[in-house]
């Protein structure tokens, strides 16, 4: 078991606590639990037993067997948050999407009202275009440099 322990890179607790590591944290937890279970029963398990695969799964919940709907519901705007979850498939995108402080419309309006800003932004894109066109023919440029 210790050899396996060494093989797997361990992530520190502090890193796992970080917001972007939540998925990995879950994975690591599952692996740890599995290993722990194996260690606990290693004395009682034979090799054969460990290798055996079962085609039977136990699912004690009616909710899965019957394919039931989610059980927290809201209709006609009684609880907008719940309705958001009902629409967005268990809120997977609600979790990832953070609400913007400045909406897109607001940003467009601010930029439109301020002409200098528009120019600055326009300049930015012009420059980029120029850069790209230069990038396309770097060979010729180099040649010229070597000529002089």
């Amino acid at each position, binding site marked *: 078991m210790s050899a396996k322990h060494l093989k797997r890179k361990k992530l520190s607790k502090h890193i796992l606590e970080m917001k972007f590591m939540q998925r990995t944290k879950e994975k690591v937890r599952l692996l740890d639990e599995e290993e722990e279970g194996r260690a606990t029963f290693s004395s009682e398990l034979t090799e054969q037993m460990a290798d055996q695969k079962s085609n039977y799964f136990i699912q004690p*919940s009616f909710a899965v067997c019957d394919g039931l709907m989610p059980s927290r519901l809201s209709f006609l705007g009684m609880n907008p948050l719940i309705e958001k979850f009902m629409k967005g498939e268990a809120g997977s995108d609600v979790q990832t999407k953070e609400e913007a402080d400045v909406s897109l419309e607001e940003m467009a309006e601010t930029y439109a009202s301020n002409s200098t800003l528009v120019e600055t932004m326009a300049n930015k894109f012009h420059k980029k275009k120029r850069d790209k066109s230069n990038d396309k023919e770097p060979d010729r440029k180099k040649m010229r440099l070597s000529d002089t």
Partner: protein
Amino acid sequence: MVSEDVKVGHFGREAIVGSVVLPGQVVEEASSAEQKKVTLGPGVERVKENIVVCNSGILKKSEPNIYYVDNLQKRYTPVRKECVIGVVTMKAGDIFKIDINSSEQASLSYLAFENVSKKNRPRIEVGDLVYAQILSASKDMEPELVCVNSYGKQVTMGVLPAEGFLFQCSINLIRKILSPECPLLSKLGKRIPYETAIGMNGRIWIKAKNVDATLLIGNAILASEYASTETINEICDNLLKKLPNV
């Protein structure tokens, strides 16, 4: 849940899908399916090479290869990952004791909420209702609840608002109104603005804009226990007719 096409079982050794079965009968169909993956739902157990019924009811099969016994049940047996409605009965140090209608009270840690810390405790009083998920359910230990998913998000769980109406019904009714074929909740939802939490432990919490609407929804749910889909539609129409404009 009892429909007309249920066959009366012959009560021999073999349990037949779609008929009444008794504990001890063998589901030959599942036992012989060697290569296929089979899921054993509630009421079906594996004893050595045989798949044996351990509850009396109607043996059902759903896709893919799920066998389970559909029985009348009022007492709740906790199952991991199911969502339940609990009543806070006691605050004991760092856990809350929650009554979830099962043989034993469940425990809920005060840290099992979103955005709480040891200093910033959740505000929960005795008598509050919580909508929570069962984290662990075993025969030998008390069930444990959490109000967050595995990513630490509360999603739809947590303390239910104080205004609302809680009532109890059989677990079969819960399964009936939550099945995708049942038109009841969505049909009522087209006319009446309301919010509901339905616990797999046989508790239903409703919040509507006034008492009339709340009672109407409650009555409609209780009336549909033994009703077919058409009857449910009729019940809804009749009740909605009586309701003044909400």
